[in-house]
């Protein structure tokens, strides 16, 4: 007898496709946040699955820090073109210039500065829903996040006042000025993302795979040695064989020593890993509630 039963990737996929189509149907001006990172690469494949043979009925939005790995930007532009999609890019540099974002004294990493830029872009294009690739397994504040995450007119998340989500019925209703962040990958883990990338044979930026890079030891991890924040004389610098597990502002993105050169290697590496993905992100280590505070302010 034929088995009418989905495996775990099929289940996660159909759940995410359902959510993407709900967004296309219930919102007037949705967008997909596409950074070129592995999670948003999965989002784009899910969008293809949800909407083809039609065009993907929403533009891609990227809030660039200006501190990107150049491989990421090249990939981002190429992928958007392949998919025949409109790519909107807003940068922290522009925002610093025109005063939308203001750098705190001593603040070098720009992950935090993406918040005002994102909120300004939402206002500029009057987006009512932004689809993002955040996952609940990344961080414990995110474990409490909904698929449809309601944000008030200041873009803020109120964790104590979230709409219950029951069955597959999502409440996307908004009043003017409010907007929704939507996370179709909520139930995916880092492992699921890589298994999906492998199964769907998706291209990812080369920095996810093993490569040679000059790194500097900072805050208990190896970060790329860049001109943005040159190594101080007392800091150890080393050329290493590394890959990145998660991509943020280049100066705070930890590099892990790894020989993994393809999806299978990465999957095996994650299976054996004893540190979470965000363990290599310095921005989450600022305080116990670092992610929660950023989300309340409008971050993803």
């Amino acid at each position: 007898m034929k088995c009418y039963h989905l495996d775990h990737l099929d289940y996660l996929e159909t759940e995410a496709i359902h959510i993407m189509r709900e967004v296309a149907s219930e919102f007037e001006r949705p967008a997909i946040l596409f950074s070129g990172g592995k999670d948003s690469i999965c989002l784009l494949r899910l969008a293809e699955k949800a909407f083809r043979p039609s065009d993907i009925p929403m533009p891609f939005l990227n809030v660039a820090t200006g501190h990107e790995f150049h491989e990421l930007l090249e990939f981002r532009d190429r992928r958007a073109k392949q998919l025949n999609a409109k790519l909107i890019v807003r940068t922290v540099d522009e925002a610093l210039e025109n005063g939308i974002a203001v750098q705190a004294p001593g603040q070098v990493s720009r992950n935090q500065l993406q918040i005002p830029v994102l909120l300004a872009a939402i206002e500029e294009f009057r987006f009512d829903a932004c689809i993002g690739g955040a996952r609940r397994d990344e961080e414990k504040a995110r474990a409490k996040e909904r698929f449809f995450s309601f944000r008030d007119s200041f873009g803020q998340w109120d964790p104590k006042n979230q709409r219950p989500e029951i069955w597959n019925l999502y409440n996307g209703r908004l009043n003017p000025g409010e907007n929704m962040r939507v996370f179709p990958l909520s139930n995916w883990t880092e492992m699921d993302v890589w298994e999906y990338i492998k199964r769907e044979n998706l291209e990812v930026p080369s920095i996810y795979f093993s490569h040679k890079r000059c790194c500097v030891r900072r805050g208990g991890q190896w970060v790329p040695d860049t001109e943005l924040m040159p190594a101080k004389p007392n800091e150890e610098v080393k050329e290493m064989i590394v890959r990145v597990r998660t991509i943020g502002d280049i100066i705070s993105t930890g590099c892990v020593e790894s020989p993994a050169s393809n999806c299978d290697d990465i999957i095996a590496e994650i299976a054996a890993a004893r540190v979470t993905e965000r363990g290599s992100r310095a921005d989450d280590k600022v305080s116990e509630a670092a992610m929660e505070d950023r989300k309340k302010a409008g971050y993803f």
Partner: protein
Amino acid sequence: MTTATHQNKVDLLRFNTCGSVDDGKSTLIGRLLYDSKSLMEDQIEALERSADITGGGQINLANLTDGLRAEREQGITIDVAYRYFATPHRKFIIADTPGHVQYTRNMVTGASTANLSIILIDARQGVIEQSRRHAIIASLLRIPHLVVAINKMDLVDWKEERFLEIKDQFEEFLPRLDIKDVKFIPVSALKGDNIVTHSEHTPWYPGPTLLGHLETVHIASDWNLTNFRFPVQWVNRPNNPTDHSLHDFRGLSGQIAGGIVRVGQKVMVLPSGFSSTIKQIWTLDGAVEEAFSPQSVTLVLEHDLDISRGDVIVDAADLPGSSSDLHAKICWMNPRPLTPGKQYLLKHTTQTVKAAVTAIENRINISTLDKEEGITELAMNDLGEVRIKTAKALIFDGYATNRLTGSFILIEPGTNSTVAAGMLLPPTEAARPEYKDFAI
């Protein structure tokens, strides 16, 4: 043990746990995560860091799930938290809900997508009111599988008599419930007995460990594969297809809410009543001959009919109910009580319609399952049976037949809050109209 990798085709089991701080729920989840090697060094490190600050050096496994600052400061769990772990056999999603505040509302949320529910019973206390409430909610939400984990067995000297006594207590009220599959397991979450490995203390227990059961319980038939139901979610009509052969493509995209669909199958579109045949089942990976619930697909019909979001495509030989007078069980989720007569929005499958609750028939006592009549309002966390009138007829099944076509939410206009979760009772004969055959 290693985590699941691509080599094995593994499926996904969703389960929920519910309970208060001291019944060992957090310890149980911590144990499952720890023993399946799903806890990472930096998570343990973060636990230690917060233990130094707030916990007087004592690691608290509850901090793993209590992710928000207010929760840690006040020592409470606000909401449903989701946790993920995997073994070589299966992937798991845990919906972890607090036992003390907003018990029913959160448990209904966590239970709505669960295949299985774990009820923890303290072996010293036996079946208490909370165990009964938990089982009753699991039954109302029709969670297919139930596990009764009789915990802290070490504190009753691993006595089989005590285990059997509690099992009897629980089985006493089982006949009143609608649960097909119940499993009793004696465990000690703290010590790890019968969680991942068999306990040497329970030679009298021949069954599986908790994880062993979670890995093997049969979930393939948890979805409705009998009655084909396809709520149209999005009309797929390419404006400028790169492939010119798709110029006249008109697909109907959606998630199959029940049953199996095959090319050539005779279907009916509701509410219009037009008949047609499935011409193609389109997916990005190519056309397929058949598809089943809960897959997301795009259907192409033989006839070009006027179909839009909210319409439902069903098997022509197996029609659902259709009515604007509904009878349902609801769980009220809002601090402002439900009062009859007020207008709400009702979202059911892919459509949202205006609705009013015309009468509250009763409130269900979730400790006894008794129906209390003469009720004027339902307060937050109350469950009850109501009558609802909608501005447009719903195409529906009873919740017992299909969780997706038998469920709805109520939304309060203005605040846009989700105020209730509803489960429809089966359609009456009057709600099963004859459709004239409008085949072209």
